[in-house]
Every structure is written in C-alpha cells, then in structure tokens.
C-alpha cells in the first residue's frame, strides 16, 4: 500500500462523506418544501369550505332582511373576488380573505336588527359552521406557518444555504392575516345572545 494510494483513498472517502451530506440536506429540503405545499392546500380546503357556505347564508338572510341588499351584495362580491384571486401568494390571499371576513361581520351584525333572523335555525346552524370554518382556517394557518418556519430556517442556515441556493430552494411566505384583522375575523360571528 503506497502512500499515494492511501492518500487517494482518504480523499475519495472525504468526497463520499461530503456527497452523502449534500444528498441528506437536499432531501431534507425537498421534504420540508412538500410539507409547506401540503399545508397550503389544507388552508385552501378550509377557505373553499367557507366559500361554499356563503351562498346558503345569503339566501337565508335575504328571506328576512330583504332591505339589506347592500350588505348582501358586498358579501357576494367579496366572496367572488376571494375565490377568483391568485391563490399562489399568501399575501394576496390574506388581503381578499380579510375583506371577506369584514363583509361577513357586517352580515352577522344584521341579526341584532332582525329578531326573526336571530331565531331561525338554519341561520344559527350556518353561523356555527362559518365560525368553525374560521377556527379551522386559523388552525391550518398555524400549521402552515410552522412548516414555513422550518423550511425558511433550513434554507437560511449555514452551510445548508449553499446547497439550497444551488438547487433553487426559496423561502416561502408566512400566511399572515393582519394581526388586528385576525382578531376581528375570530370575533366576527361569535354568538352572544
């Protein structure tokens, strides 16, 4: 075993170790990125649930509060805008969702003015479902954000960031419903008779 051979084997061994490390980091990043994508689609599922509940709600309210056409129109418009907006950017989605939450808040405020509406079983059930959907949007948002945190940390930290950069792993955006709006969105349909 000449010295040269030993040296070459040593270098080869070192290169192998580096290769395995790079593969490990790359695969870890792939897993994290896919988790973020999956978490985002979970949010979309909850958003869609809210969109689907709204037409029913509008119809129920229309029966009792026909004069409030303006409020109802706003809700429908906000809903359509949210549905048709570009759902790939969390920021854009946060904006349209906040508008929709605001419109829904005004709609639910109508129950004070129309006691018949307040007593309607269908309305109450829909209110419960929408409140639960908003809770679920918050829950899936938290899950999404923790996955984004994990991915972003891995992409930023040294020496993984070199690998991340060379293979095109980018940081993802957090889904931030504006803090104040988030509070409002949570409180909006809470029932206090």
């Amino acid at each position, binding site marked *: 075993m000449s010295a040269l051979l030993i040296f070459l084997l040593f270098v080869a061994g070192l290169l192998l170790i580096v290769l395995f490390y790079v593969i490990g980091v790359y695969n870890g990043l792939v897993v994290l990125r896919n988790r973020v994508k999956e978490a985002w689609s979970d949010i979309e599922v909850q958003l869609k649930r809210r969109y689907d509940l709204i037409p029913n709600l509008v119809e129920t309210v229309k029966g009792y509060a026909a004069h409030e056409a303006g409020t109802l129109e706003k809700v429908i418009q906000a809903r359509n805008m949210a549905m048709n907006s570009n759902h790939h950017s969390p920021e854009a989605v946060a904006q349209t969702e906040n508008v929709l939450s605001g419109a829904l808040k005004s709609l639910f405020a109508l129950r004070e003015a129309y006691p018949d509406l307040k007593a309607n079983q269908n309305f109450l059930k829909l209110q419960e479902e929408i409140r639960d959907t908003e809770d*679920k949007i918050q829950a*899936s948002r938290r*899950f999404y954000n923790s996955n984004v945190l994990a991915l972003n940390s891995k992409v930023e930290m040294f020496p993984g960031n070199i690998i991340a950069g060379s293979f095109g792993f980018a940081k993802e955006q957090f889904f931030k419903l504006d803090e104040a709006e988030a509070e409002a969105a949570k409180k909006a349909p809470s029932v206090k008779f």
Partner: protein
Amino acid sequence: MLSFPLVLAALSYLCIFAFTHLVRDPDFYVNPITQANMYAMYIIPGTVILAAIWITFSYFGGGHMLLSAANAHEIRKQDNPEVYRLVENVCITMGMPLPKVYIIDDHSMNAFATGRDPQHASIALTSGIIARLDRPELEAVIAHEMGHVINRDITLMLITVAGISFFAFTGSILLRAAARSGRSRDKNDGAAVLLLFGIAVVFMIFAYFIAPLIRMAVSRSREYLADATSAHVTRNPLALASALRKISTDSRVESLDEMTAMAPMCIENPLDKIGSSFSGLTATHPPVAKRIAALEAMGR
C-alpha cells in the same frame, strides 16, 4: 432502548453460568465456561424473544385496557359537535389525523390519550372536564393530550412498563429456582445457588425499586414536554395554566382506581390522594404549581 436487551442478555448469561454448576455431572470435569456457552446459545435468544413478545402484546393491546376500564364511550361528530370540533382544530394545527374521541361519564375533571402512534390514537375526556372548563382551557387540555400522542409518550410508557414487569416476572422465577436448588448435594453447588439467588434479588430490586423511579422521572419530564407542546400549539399557555388550576382541585376518577400503571397518561393524577404518592421522586406528575409557573413564564 438498546441497553435493555444487553442487560437482559448479560444477566441471563450469569444465570446460565450458575446453572451449569448445578446440572453438571460431578464425575468428570467440564470447563464450566464452555458448557455455559453451549446453553447460552439457546437460552439467551430465547429470553430476548420472550421479552420482545411480552412487550409487543403490551404495545398493541395497552390502549384498549384503559378505555374499557374507565367505561368510556366513543362519540361521533353529531353527539357532541363542540368537543369534536375542538379536537379537529387541534389536530389540524398539529398536522395529525383525527383520533377516536371518547367521553367518560364522571363529574371529576380529567383527560387522557392512548395510542401507539398518531394513526391509532384515542383521546378520552370526562364529562366533568367538558362541562367545567371554558373553550380555550378545554382546547389547551386537548392539545396537551395530543401532544403526548405526537411525542410518542404512550409508546414509551407501554414499553417501559412491559420491560419492567418482565424483569419482575423472571426475577420471581429465578428466586423459586434458587430456592429449589438450595437442597443440593455437594459443597461446590452452594456458590452457584448463592449466585443464582443474588441475580434474582438484583432483578427484583431493579423491577420494584429502581425501574419505577426511572419510570416516574421519565413520566414527569414528558408531562412538562406535553405542557410545552400544548402552549406551542394553542399559542396560549395561560389557558392551560388556568385549566390546570381548576383541574387540580378535582382530578380523581373512581373507575381508574386500580390502574396505577396508567396514571401517567392522564393530565393530572387520577388516583386517590391518599393511595398514591403526590410529591417527590415517586410522583407520576410534576407538582401543579410548578407546571403552572412554567406555563406562566412562557406566557410573558
């Protein structure tokens, strides 16, 4: 995890070595170590396999025992939508599939989770805890229990308990074997019997004194971990703190009085205050005051 089979193998070898002194033909001399090795080839794998079977049964069956003992009945979404929705939301936040939800008809406040992994989990809540805590507090308790599942605490406990009981079982068998061989023919066997006896005593001490201490320490640290998981999931550590304050006044669940091994899985000790230890090394749960203080520190 690895040390358990190694310790078991080492102790088994010692026992076999002791046995060969008793069973050898006194007329001609056989190297005791060679003879021990011969037996060991069969016996050591045998004991390790037995232990593995023992543990596997506990692992798969452990959860059901607890649920049937507590008279829990499973609910569907329509039976109690509020509670069901809370569990759903916690699971969405943690990225876990939904567990089976059970309710125990008991006025006291307690909750537990069982299940070897998130895909096979169950959570049980007493009707008392549902009625007496408000929504954020109940959500925090549910998050604490699901935290146990996701941190694999139940698996850890089941394997630990099964491992310890295996030591106790074999210890008692060895004691009986040592007692029988005590009536032996020649002097040389005396040492072997003593050795066997000694090993049996070590097994018993380990099973009844040392292992429970280890188990309690592990149980306490996992409780803190589950508290932290709950605080992280709900973003509201003070909710769990206030829930714990309410629960500590009345956590006893009568139907669980016999199940001392399962106490660590509940959110607070479900056993009678007199019957079980509530402080120091033998407590299954950390003192409530300490848990609340830790949570309040997180809340700042």
